């Protein structure tokens, strides 16, 4: 017996959209050949079951393994694979994905499915209730975190205290790889983004709070630590502290006063959202 979600998935997999997608899911990927296919399978089945037109975008970040070849060989009609010739950082990959996305609502999700795609609805509720940005949070009340080591918990808590009280970004978790934007908010934020590395999330939230006065909902999510992370925690922490200083410095120098990247889409693509 074929269960109910498979026909919707088959249609999405086989037939190119003839209308603008309502949702875009962006996955940044760097050397993810081991993990990307299960993640795509889980996301594709769940998103197709929602009954709305949607697209999947994988923004390669200069992978040196077979990530790109694997993705290009899938033949999924509504999967875009953005190929980068060199590694530019997670922030640059997410930005390229956002720039290529055509949906009304844009989600970026990590390639390891550590925040299960089933949490999509919770963030979407926040967007539909009027927020410009909804961020998955592993630290908000109600979040369920599994397999996160004690060292990593302490590490995250320490960095978060710095972010909250030293940086003025009042969220319990700025780094969860599961964030949703209206297309208008994505245009504002990602055209002004400068940080291309891991802490681009922090810059995005800083801009949302301090530059554009966007409304941000912090949504508790289920999060399962994924073994085989390609992230080096110590290196990331040093970069994170350095980037916090850079972001403040960039702001003081007025570097966020105008866009740093051109939004590569016609204005009408976001104007339609206001209606």
């Amino acid at each position, binding site marked *: 017996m074929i*269960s109910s979600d498979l026909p919707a998935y088959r249609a999405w997999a086989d037939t190119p959209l003839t209308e603008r997608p309502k949702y875009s899911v962006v996955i940044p990927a760097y050397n993810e050949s081991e993990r990307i*296919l*299960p993640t795509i399978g*889980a996301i594709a089945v769940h998103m197709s*079951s929602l009954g709305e037109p949607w697209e999947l975008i994988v923004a390669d970040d200069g992978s040196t393994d077979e990530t790109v070849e694997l993705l290009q060989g899938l033949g999924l009609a509504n999967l875009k694979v953005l190929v980068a010739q060199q590694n530019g950082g997670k922030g640059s990959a997410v930005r390229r994905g956002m720039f290529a996305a055509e949906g009304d609502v844009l989600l970026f999700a990590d390639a390891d499915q550590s925040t299960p795609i089933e949490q999509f609805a919770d963030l979407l509720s926040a967007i539909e209730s009027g927020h410009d940005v909804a961020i998955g949070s592993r630290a908000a009340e109600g979040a369920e975190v599994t397999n996160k080591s004690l060292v990593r918990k302490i590490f995250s808590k320490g960095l978060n205290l710095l972010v909250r009280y030293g940086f003025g970004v009042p969220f319990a978790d700025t780094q969860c790889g599961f964030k949703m934007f209206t297309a208008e908010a994505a245009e504002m934020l990602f055209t002004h983004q400068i940080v291309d590395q891991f802490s681009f999330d922090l810059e995005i939230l800083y801009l949302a709070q301090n530059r554009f006065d966007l409304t941000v909902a912090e949504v508790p999510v289920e999060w*399962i630590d994924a073994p085989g992370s390609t992230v080096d925690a110590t290196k990331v922490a040093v970069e994170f502290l350095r980037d916090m200083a850079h972001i403040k410095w960039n702001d003081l120098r007025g570097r966020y006063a105008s866009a740093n990247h051109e939004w590569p889409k016609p204005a009408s693509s976001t104007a339609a959202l206001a209606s």
Partner: protein
Amino acid sequence: MRLVTEAPTTEQPALVLDGRFDAFETEKFRAACDELLAHGANSLSVDLSDVIFIDSSGLAELVRAMKHCRQSGGELVIVSPSDPVRVIFELTRLDAAFTIQDASVQAS
């Protein structure tokens, strides 16, 4: 992930899994398989109807168990994989490597 062993003393016992089958769960699965195979089973049914996600570690563990069964002249049968798991098998082309059956076929 929850793992329940059914009919452990038969020729083809069943392992029923639910939740997320990832690298954190492979040890539990391997131990259950090895125990059944060590006690005379040469075939296994693995019910994945309530597994919501399987990662490459989980897939590798199933391949390992399948090889053990085949070396003993038996088979590992995947039973009623959930939609996402079925699609993950397809995308990784492992649907061609495994015997996949619906529970209704198994029961008949």
